[in-house]
């Protein structure tokens, strides 16, 4: 079923560079997200996952798309100077963006209801003060599980807890009925139980409203249980795309294996939880040589010198391991 659908978001050899640096920070990223698919992006801090997501939608002031092609819903976005303006047009209509921190991502001096009616106005041209728009906004608040939505409509963001604020952030993004929701570590600031509730909210919405989700996080366990496929970034390189059902079932890219070995879980003693030896390399490794080679137990000389393979985007999964580890059997 998933295979048949044309991709909603397609990245082909995309690289992202900072405006004041010549070297691309993230490079050689090829992946495609299908309609209604929940797609996870995972990586250590500094792996470039947030940079990538923000830049391809023109939300990063200090970075730009340095190469490659980006298509959304079958239409290719213009490149170079005109990319940002084109991406900005997608935002608020076809693409919703949920930022990391619910405590600072709501306008503190605007009532919650008005922030939603504003979003409705911007996305659909619904008049901001009409009773119908108000009804709709209250409906959206109720859908994301805000108790007493009529009351909440007239409250200010600081009157809500972190989990509730994150729901409001989602309500604002979802009210615009995007085709793709980009959630940039939406749960990092929340406690474990609230995290799960927020994720469940996204998944349910994805099922009921034909919503594709790009979920960026470093919470592996949560990701494995909630998404269809996971892309693994390291050092600004795409190393692995795996079906989350495959995790723990078949050998994966050595870095992915190492990442999932770090998850503490029930029945695993502290000694069994392995950290990855060595220090993580930052983004900006380029495409020559595997960024993980310095920490990889399997690394051989070619790993440091060969050009990293590029995802052809045809298969469900992909492994960039130069030794062929983690490739689909």
């Amino acid at each position, binding site marked *: 079923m998933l295979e048949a659908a044309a991709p909603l978001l397609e990245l082909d050899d995309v690289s992202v560079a900072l405006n004041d640096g010549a070297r691309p920070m993230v490079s050689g990223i090829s992946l495609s997200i299908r309609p209604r698919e929940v797609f996870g992006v995972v990586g250590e801090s500094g792996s470039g996952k947030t940079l990538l997501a923000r830049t391809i939608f023109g939300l990063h002031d200090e970075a730009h798309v340095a190469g490659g092609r980006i298509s959304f819903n079958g239409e290719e976005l213009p490149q170079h100077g005109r990319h940002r303006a084109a991406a900005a047009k997608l935002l608020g209509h076809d693409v919703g963006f949920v*930022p990391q921190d619910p405590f600072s991502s709501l306008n503190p001096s605007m009532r919650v209801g008005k922030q939603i009616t504003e979003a409705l106005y911007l*996305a659909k041209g619904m008049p901001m003060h009409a009773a119908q728009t108000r009804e709709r906004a209250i409906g959206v608040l109720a859908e994301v599980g805000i108790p007493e939505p009529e009351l909440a409509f007239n409250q200010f963001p600081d009157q809500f807890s972190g989990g509730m604020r994150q729901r409001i952030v989602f309500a604002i993004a979802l009210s615009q009925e995007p085709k793709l929701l980009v959630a940039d570590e939406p749960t990092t600031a929340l406690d474990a139980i609230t995290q799960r509730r927020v994720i469940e909210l996204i998944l349910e919405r994805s099922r009921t409203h034909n919503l594709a989700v790009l979920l960026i996080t470093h919470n592996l366990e949560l990701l494995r249980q909630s998404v269809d496929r996971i892309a693994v970034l390291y050092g600004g390189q795409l190393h692995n795309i795996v079906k989350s059902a495959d995790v723990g079932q078949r050998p994966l890219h050595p870095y992915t294996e190492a990442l999932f070995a770090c998850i503490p879980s029930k029945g695993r003693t502290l000694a069994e939880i392995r950290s990855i030896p060595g220090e993580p390399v930052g983004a900006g490794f380029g495409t020559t040589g595997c960024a993980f080679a310095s920490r990889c137990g399997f690394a051989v000389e070619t790993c440091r010198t060969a050009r990293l393979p590029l995802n052809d985007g045809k298969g469900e999964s992909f492994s960039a391991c130069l030794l062929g580890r983690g490739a689909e059997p």
Partner: protein
Amino acid sequence: MRRLLSYPRSTIEWSAVVVACLIVLMALFGRWFAPFDALQIDFRNKLKAPSFVHLLGTDETGRDVLSRLLFGAQLTLSSTLTVLVIVVLIGCTIGLFSALIGGAIDNLLMRLADIWLGFPPLILALGFASALGASLEAAILALVLSWWPNYARLTRMVASDILARKFIASADALGVPLTRKIFAYLIPNAFDVMIVQVSLDVSAVMLAISGLSFIGVGAQIPAPEWGAMIADGRSYVSKAWWIVSAPGLMIFLTAVSFNIIGDMLRRELDPTLRRDRREGPAGA
């Protein structure tokens, strides 16, 4: 409104609020309660001590001091308000522009503001007085020209602080256009800081206007501006103390009460203090 009433926390703050309200009322309606015309000369009654006819006495040309005080309240406060309104408009526009555009132009504007701040308002006003002729308008112009950099710098600082916050990025993600971002996101969130600065500046600007009038480059005799009244009556201070002490007391009371209110607003509205109060247990 109920929130406003919870701001004053001590007798001093309450009295400052009451005094400030009285002074504003006096400026608005005082002239209709004045027993005499503020400019009417009556040499038979010059330098009269306070009595039931002239409650605050008369000056050296027999003008009623109380009437002049009531008329002067309007003159002094309206020129203060004029200065502040113009200064806030100019300063905020430049500051917002500077913060939004950034880069070299931002730098240029802010260095200009820094250089401009180097001119003391007194020197500027003296320059204007000699160029335009000493008048209240010249004093107002001089103050506007020397005060705007304060607001430009403050607004620029506050605005770039707000622009760096996450909800601005969220607004970008929703597709909020620039004008709406300025009026619905920047200005409401900068309002607290600005209102504190304005209330503190009321007394500073008023003192400056009265000071300029006192040294003779502001309001001219016989205009009942408080600073000019003091300048006018100072040669008679040994014979007729009431001529200088009445406007002096008014200047003092206005300056002190608005300063106390400014400090109170700063305490209540300061973003860092407010965060402590707000980040407490917040239920949905």
